[in-house]
């Protein structure tokens, strides 16, 4: 077998060498070590676990998700076993992923700035390769999330708390902060978390939305409101990545609506370093990773691109493109 780290899809992300730029997005089958390993075997270059918080949460009652035609909507409600249990699952996941050469991302959320630091410290015990800080889950009302991603100050405060909590560890994992699309100026939020010490940015989480059944005269989700993902989110995510890429010199996990290899190429061209994949698992099965990898490689061959890095930022204004190639 040839060296997969040299294949055209191999790429760098922070200190990591990935065999593919595709990253399993948080909350997508990332609830168990075996499912994380399955995404990795299918072709994900890096996998993100479901977000976990300080204590166990059952999540919302059904209906929690559906395909409304232009994309998906979900309000799972951050179902998770709590940080302590999650740390054990992450450790087991790491064991399964190691032989596959696929790094593991832990994802965390919390209700207060201080709690974010505490959860980060607990999951760090499992030595994930990256901790993603979900400050943007739109499905838990005012209880969690929304306010943190909505203002530069709160986004920065969470970033700072997580950094401090990890600083005392012998080998603190790098931190990516996951941003929400529903802000007036995402570049401002990106700059704030960059200044607060984020190592990377994940953009974007789902867009707040609602699906109503006219015959029932009711919102369909039991939680009434939910988050939009899939095809409808793609142009929103591309623009967010495009603006963040011009605002900060951090690597970006560009996420939202990527279903095909061409979609992945567009996300890289908007300025993403690697590409998150979530809803595609519904549209194409867990095999989505293998299929997107194959399509991306085919696109690159047809267009004469030799590496993933060559695609990065091609759709940015020329000056920003050069800056991004030089720095990130």
């Amino acid at each position, binding site marked *: 077998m040839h060296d997969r780290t040299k294949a055209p899809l191999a790429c760098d992300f922070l200190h990591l060498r990935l065999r593919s730029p595709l990253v399993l997005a948080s909350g997508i089958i990332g609830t168990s070590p075996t499912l994380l390993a399955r995404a990795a075997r299918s072709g994900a270059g890096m996998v993100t676990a479901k977000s976990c918080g300080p204590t166990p949460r059952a999540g919302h009652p059904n209906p929690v998700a559906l395909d409304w*035609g232009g994309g998906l909507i979900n309000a799972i409600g951050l179902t998770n076993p709590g940080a302590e249990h999650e740390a054990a699952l992450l450790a087991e996941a790491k064991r399964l992923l190691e032989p596959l050469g696929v790094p593991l991302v832990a994802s965390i959320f919390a209700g207060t700035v201080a709690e974010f630091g505490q959860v980060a410290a607990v999951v760090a015990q499992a030595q994930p390769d990256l901790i993603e800080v979900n400050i943007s889950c739109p499905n838990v009302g005012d209880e969690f999330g929304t306010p943190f991603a909505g203002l530069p100050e709160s986004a920065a405060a969470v970033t700072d708390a997580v950094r401090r909590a990890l600083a005392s560890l012998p080998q603190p994992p790098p931190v990516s902060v996951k941003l929400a699309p529903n802000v007036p100026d995402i570049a401002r939020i990106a700059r704030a978390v960059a200044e607060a010490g984020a190592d990377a940015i994940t953009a974007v989480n789902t867009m707040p939305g609602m699906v109503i059944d006219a015959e029932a005269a009711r919102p369909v989700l039991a939680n009434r409101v939910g988050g939009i993902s899939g095809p409808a989110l793609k142009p929103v995510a591309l623009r967010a990545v495009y603006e963040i890429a011009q605002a900060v010199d951090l690597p970006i996990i560009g996420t939202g609506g990527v279903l095909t290899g061409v979609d992945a190429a567009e996300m890289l061209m908007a300025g993403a370093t690697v590409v998150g994949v979530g809803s595609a698992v*519904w549209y194409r099965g867990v095999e989505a990773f293998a299929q997107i990898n194959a399509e991306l490689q085919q696109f690159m061959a047809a267009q004469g691109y030799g590496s993933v890095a060559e695609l990065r930022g091609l759709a940015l204004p020329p000056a920003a493109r050069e800056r991004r190639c030089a720095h990130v």
Partner: protein
Amino acid sequence: MSEALAGLHRPYRVASIRLENAATRTLVLDRSLAADPGQFVMAWLPDVGEKPFSLAGADPVCLTVAAVGPFSRALHTLAVGDRIWLRGPLGRGFAPPSPAGHALLVGGGYGVAPLRFLAERLLAAGWHVSAIVGARRAADLLLVEALAALGVRLWLTTEDGSVGLRGLATDAFDAALTAAPEARTTVFACGPVGMLAAVAALCRTRGLPVQLAWEAHMRCAVGLCGSCEVGAGWLTCLDGPVFPCDPTVALPMG
């Protein structure tokens, strides 16, 4: 646009209701759906909840519901003309190989419902069909007459011996196979997880191909939330509910 959008719930009306046994009734709905036996729908009652149900028929859509808890009891309160919302068909159903051969259906509890739907399809495609129907006691048996009326060769088992063989559905396995009209047998099973595992083990020993309709706790039903994981990484809603193996033993490929 809603008809074209496969993932949205669509409202159906209850056209008629068939009482199957004391605790089980079949809701016959007012329209049909292109679907395979073994596929399921998510049934939604606004302000009540949403749960998975196997299709017990597709033309028209039928759901066979055992009243065991709050949601299934709510379904039992529906009257003719009432509405029920379904999204689907979801998941992978039974996939009979070709050419047609001998099918041995093994059903326990409301698992018989999709098997009756399957038997119709198999018979239409020229299969010989036998079925083992198991239950705790005679009163819990389901759809026996319906299967017999189709011309399916039947073996009944009850745990208390009140009807048929005393024991579990798997205890009738050898008898049903011996009586099989030909060697090319495929086993199709639906029922409690314990029964399915036992059927899978029997088939493994005998080298018989098997298709098992599994159950799991379903939330999103679109392959994302992970709550329906069975075994080491199978998604019941997306890879199943029908598996060509025991998903608690075999590994998914990728």
